[in-house]
């Protein structure tokens, strides 16, 4: 029985995706050695003096990148509002 077009397409698609993944894994630079370490070193060295926080991740999330946290809070607020609006009619 000859292979159907669907199987041939699946094999070609799988090969292309696997090639992308393998080349992507081979081309990644080593772990722990970022290509552009300027921002990392700045944050690691100056977090305690500038924000007073010991936890660098929290310092980045709530101080350096506050807008990003505001966006996350907006996403959560929108989700809650949507769920409550959607299920309000079922309460009666």
């Amino acid at each position, binding site marked *: 029985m000859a292979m159907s077009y669907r199987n041939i397409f699946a094999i070609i698609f799988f090969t292309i995706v696997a090639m992308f993944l393998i080349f992507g894994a081979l081309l990644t630079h080593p772990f722990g050695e970022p290509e552009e370490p300027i921002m990392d070193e700045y944050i690691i060295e100056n977090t*305690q*003096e*500038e*924000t*007073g*926080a*010991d*936890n660098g*991740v*929290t*310092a980045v*999330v*709530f*101080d350096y990148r*506050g*807008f990003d*946290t*505001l966006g*996350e*809070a907006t996403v*959560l*607020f929108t*989700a*809650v509002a949507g*769920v*409550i609006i959607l*299920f309000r009619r*079922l*309460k009666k």
Partner: protein
Amino acid sequence: MMSKIVKTITAIALPLILIYGLYVIAHGHLTPGGGFQGGAIVASGLAMIVVAFGSVWTMKKVKEKQLSILESLGALGFISLAFLGLLFSANVFFDNFLIGQNSLPIFNEIGQGLSNINTAGVIPFMNFAVGLKVIAGLFAIVLVMAYATTKLEGIEE
């Protein structure tokens, strides 16, 4: 609504889960974690109430309107802290205005390794605001969806 065993275990384990979640929120600027993570822990502990005691019983105790008000209060606190940074510092949104000033000498300390909880200026307050928001938001989502499912399937509790 589950059996008496599940209810008893929930009543025993719930305070520990809540304390751990509140610890993660309160120490967000010192140890790993923060408002989002601790709020998720507390909300999962509160979701255990919904599982063990049933959503109808829980909805009698807590209305989702109150949870919605709490979540809006958290969001307002967070964004008003951001605007306070705009007001008290050199016109920078989300500025940490408590660090590097001398009028409030309690909260302007800088953490040195294993440090106290009153360091990091405005970050703990933002953690509390976001934690309140995440607790109320996730618990509202779980409670409303469980209640609606119960009502749709006609399960009598």
